[in-house]
């Protein structure tokens, strides 16, 4: 049966943990299935009807048995619950000293931007052994970023940011699927994740040619859209904002994460900072997903690294104001990625990796 897979390859720190939990639940399930099947088969043979007028004895209820088979499954499920819950909480808490990568989904392609400004389509290059935090956004409908080898999956909701993270443990190429049905081309919204050694990843980024980091582009947008005229004077200052606690006029305290900053730009009236008048206009519809992300990256770059809610995140420094952009505009059409390349290559040597596509 070689060539017919049974379990997907384990490519992230989550994979062995998910597989261990699955194995436990599979064992419990197999035990109970076997128990029920055995009882049925045995009873059907042992107590088969021997004559048409057979009258079996009346059996009283047995409360001991009833309580046993109520409590035992419940206790087993508590084990599964806490095991699964702790894994889920881990999956939601990003690792420290990570890399932040921006993913935009649209019908039907994945657009990816690295912290250095390198962009690629339907492919994601990441270094092995370093936590990677994905900031996910969708331009149209709900999509889902799913890498089976990493045992990780997250829906992308249009109009808001969601994040997921992973840490690859194996150099190789792994499949990327859209797992949430998104219309006609759903099954073509696939790609690959290429895991490189940190050294190869650096080489890959360098080989991608000069690129403008999103924070630098955001700094220019900050001037172009006139944000600078208010913020810092009539409006709240943005230095040190990211990751801090913000008191809102309606009494809520919120943490200024990416989603907060996004809403502050696209729907300012929904979260007015205490002590300030609601005078900021909405920039909804004026900024593309990419520009919105660049602005937010700029605001984040104004925060000392130690204050971020996700630990130390490597922030490339913002380029000086007015530095010329050398990044060519990324093509909006997906590259001719073969729909489904032969198979995953978890052990392929890094020298075979392709360069970036944009």
């Amino acid at each position, binding site marked *: 049966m070689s060539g017919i897979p049974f379990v997907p390859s384990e490519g992230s720190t989550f994979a062995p943990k998910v597989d261990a939990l699955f194995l436990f639940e599979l064992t419990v399930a197999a035990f109970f299935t076997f128990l029920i099947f055995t009882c049925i088969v045995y009873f059907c043979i042992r107590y088969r009807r021997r004559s048409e007028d057979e009258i079996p004895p009346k059996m009283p209820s047995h409360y001991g048995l009833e309580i046993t088979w109520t409590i035992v499954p419940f206790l087993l499920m508590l084990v599964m619950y806490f095991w699964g*819950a702790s894994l889920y909480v881990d999956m939601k808490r990003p690792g420290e000293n990570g890399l932040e990568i921006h993913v935009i989904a649209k019908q039907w392609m994945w657009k990816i931007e690295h912290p250095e400004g390198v962009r690629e389509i339907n492919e994601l290059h990441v270094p092995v052994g370093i936590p990677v935090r994905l900031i996910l956004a969708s331009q149209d409908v709900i999509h889902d970023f799913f890498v089976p080898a990493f045992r990780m999956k997250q829906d992308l909701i249009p109009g808001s940011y969601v994040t997921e993270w992973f840490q690859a443990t194996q150099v190789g190429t792994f499949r990327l699927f859209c797992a949430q049905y998104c219309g006609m081309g759903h099954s073509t919204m696939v790609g690959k994740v290429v895991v490189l050694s940190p050294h190869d990843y650096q080489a890959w980024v360098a080989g991608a040619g000069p690129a403008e980091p999103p924070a630098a582009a955001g700094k220019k947008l900050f001037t172009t859209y006139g944000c600078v005229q208010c913020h810092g004077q009539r409006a709240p200052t943005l230095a040190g904002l990211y990751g801090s606690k913000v008191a809102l006029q309606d009494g809520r305290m919120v943490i200024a994460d990416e989603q907060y900053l996004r809403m502050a730009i696209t729907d300012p009236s929904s979260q007015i900072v205490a002590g300030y008048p609601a005078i900021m206009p909405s920039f909804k519809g004026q900024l593309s997903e990419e520009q919105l992300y660049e602005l937010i990256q700029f605001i984040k770059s104004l925060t000392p690294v130690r204050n971020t809610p996700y630990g130390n995140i490597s922030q490339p420094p913002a380029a000086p104001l007015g530095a010329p952009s050398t990044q060519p505009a990324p093509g909006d059409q997906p590259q001719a990625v073969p729909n489904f390349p032969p198979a995953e290559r978890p052990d392929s040597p890094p020298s075979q990796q392709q360069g970036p596509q944009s």
Partner: protein
Amino acid sequence: MTTATFIPAARRVKELNFLNHDYSIHSWLMTKDHKRIAILYMVSITFFFIIGGVAAMLIRLELISPTNWLVASETYNKLFTMHGVIMVWFFLIPSIPAVLGNFLMPLMLGARDVAFPKLNMASWYLYVIGGVFTLVALLWGGVDTGWTFYTPLSSTFSNTHVVMVVVGVFIVGFSTIFTGLNFIVTTHSMRCPGMTWFRMPLFVWGIYATSVIQVLATPVLAMTLALVAIERIWRVGIFDPALGGDPLLFQHLFWFYSHPAVYIMILPGMAVESELITCFSRKEPFGYIFIAFSSVAIAILGFLVWAHHMFVAGISVYSGLVFSMLSMIVAVPSAIKVFNWTATLYKGSISLQTPMLYALGFIGLFTMGGLTGVMLATLGLDVHVHDTYFVIAHFHYIMVGGMVMTYMGGLHFWWPKITGRMYNEWWGKMSALTIFLGFNLTFFPQFILGYLGMPRRYPAYPPEFQFYNVLSSAGASILAVGYILPLVYLLLSLRYGKKAGKNPYRATGLEWTTTSPPPEHNFHSIPVITHEPYAYHLELREPPEEQPSD
């Protein structure tokens, strides 16, 4: 000797029953008789089952190859949407409640009809009107949103006939609500003398619990779908973030209905199961009270677990933790039922006739479906298998392995009561075994596919998934044979089957005390109940009735 000469004379006069007292079309279409309405439903859901089944066969054929060899993605998307919409709302939800429930609830309670016979007829007409809307949309070009109608895909981006299908489902929803309402009132007010709550058959308990869910949950579906139509037609921002709406709100509302709907689909199956297991092991159910109250517990807890469909949808970690716990708890009453059915077999007098084969198959398949459901409720594991074929396999084990198996079992069990004729036992057993084998071959490989990471709703897929897809498609062809066989031999039995008599299985229950088929008003005199249900140890002491020779 005088009586001996009298009886043959009486037999020459046609015995009037609900089928033969009037043959006119008008008498069928205007009928208020719950038994005739049950048959109208039986014919209509069989029609929709065939359409949904053909869609499923085309899906499985397409998936034999990793490429779009048979249909384009557009067509494939319409196929799985129609398969889902038709099977869920036009087959599974009405199957046991509207067919067997309609036929049996008044008979089991010792009543002449349901509480509101005209409303009962109206339910069927609403079902037909909803069905016409959906079929017209299908013929007109179909719909491609998936049966879940996720926004903003359905409300903004899809270019297909979303509104028409949504209207169809909206209307059929009211058919469900009316049927549920009818059964609730019937159970409360139409029980015959002596029929206390704990003397009711477990079938009645199951249908009663189902009806409560139908009445409480279905209006939420109607409202949600209406909101989708409003956003689609008038561009009012409800779910689409571009218009200021919230796409997750749709999922909360949709699953607030659709998770209880899963229990609308499985509780009636459990209800039938309790009748079959007891009859063919000639025992009262082990733990009657526990089986009855676990139905009620499932009905209540089923309302509190909806967000387990949304663990990776972007809900908060705390929501995830709470809904995972509640989903685990709802599995406990299901486990109680499985153990009690199995224990009922102990020291019974087990006869492996056709309905019993379906009933035993149900226990096995439902156990596997339930245990994989616990896996899906486990947070860390769901992240990996969510929206993959693992989920597809899991819910088909519950809905097809659970609900369809028991519907077939119940149909065979009460067939002699409904039609007065016995089906061919050998063919019955063969088809039950074919369905069991075909089902497992179709859906077991999908668990492996899902864990490997094959996402659902993909017409084209990576080549390493092909082996399991071919296995699954092969199983589907066996399953299809298993479903076509009963269609043939059950119809043939109407003409060639031997006459059944009142009680061919020597079962307990009021429905077996009246003639087969029952007279138009069910009982010649209203029965009086004097003891608990399933009293096989008492009733079997009476000599069996004389079987009619034919």
